């Protein structure tokens, strides 16, 4: 287990080539090199997730999605300023997601009457670092009441998909996940087993489960256990 030597293998997946070189030198190390050294909360479970996945249900991590926690009253100048900077209107009621509700671009998830979560792409793909993104949005907020914080490291994103994904979730989630109640493009904060997660339906057979980073291992193993009968 001891990783004390800091000899880090190159990442398995090539990070995007849109970043880095231009910034090289400004901080003494290229941004691409920084990104290459990131380790996602479930990175050591990649093989287990592959082995546990099959035709009927699949699990994988979508690591490093940029995430901004935005506090702003749901109507008013604060939310208008934030929406302008994000390029996405803010959601205003439980379950609502605005923007790219399938997760293909910037999406904004309702969390509470004065809190939303903006989710974007991994910096390795978008070239936009979350701290720059959060600074931009915070600048748009200016002196209006509210708060914008880069919380990209707070949660990781697991994608559970396939024709039996719903059945796997239903074993652990007490909410009504029927499309009539939980349509494609909806997201809520709830419990999966006893673990708090954001549950986001990105497609008919595709869900994002977003646990806090320190719960990632537990949630992955929990889901893999639920997937066994469908493998």
């Amino acid at each position, binding site marked *: 287990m001891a990783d004390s030597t800091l000899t880090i293998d190159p990442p398995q997946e090539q990070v995007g080539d849109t970043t880095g070189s231009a910034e090289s030198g400004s901080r003494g190390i290229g941004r691409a090199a920084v990104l290459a050294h990131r380790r996602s909360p479930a990175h050591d479970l990649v093989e287990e997730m592959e082995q546990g996945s099959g035709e009927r249900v699949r699990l994988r991590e979508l690591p490093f999605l940029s995430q901004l926690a935005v506090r702003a009253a749901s109507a008013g100048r604060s939310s208008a300023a934030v929406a302008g900077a994000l390029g996405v209107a803010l959601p205003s009621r*439980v379950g609502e997601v605005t923007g790219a509700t399938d997760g293909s671009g910037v999406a904004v998830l309702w*969390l*509470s*009457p004065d*809190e939303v979560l903006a989710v974007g792409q991994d910096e390795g793909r978008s070239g936009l670092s979350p701290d720059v993104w959060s600074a931009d949005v915070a600048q748009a907020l200016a002196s209006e009441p509210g708060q914008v914080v880069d919380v990209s490291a707070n949660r990781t994103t697991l994608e559970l998909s396939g024709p039996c994904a719903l059945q796997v979730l239903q074993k652990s989630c007490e909410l009504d996940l029927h499309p009539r109640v939980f349509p494609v493009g909806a997201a809520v*904060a709830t*419990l999966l087993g006893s673990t708090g997660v954001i549950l986001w339906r990105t497609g008919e057979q595709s869900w994002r489960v977003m646990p806090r980073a320190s719960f990632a291992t537990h949630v992955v193993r929990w889901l893999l256990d639920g997937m066994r009968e469908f493998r």
Partner: protein
Amino acid sequence: MLIIDCPNCGPRPETEFGYGGQAHVAYPADPHALTDEEWAQYLFYRDNPKGSYAERWVHSAGCRKWFNAVRDTRTYEISHVYRQGDPRPDLSKGA
């Protein structure tokens, strides 16, 4: 399992919530003026009715907001949910 109707999120299972005890217990205007007994009354003593009870809940696993609910301590039926700061509902009507 109770189903609690969060004012922000709608009906959710009880496990998503935390309990906050009796509602409408005001912080003393001048705590230093209280005797030890009065302070203890404020801190530790709560009503224990058989019937409707206004109490605080927090939707810990959802919107993370506090709100108030009126629950019947005999049946566990929750007759009202309302936002923090709203007045206690008139319980004289209905059950």
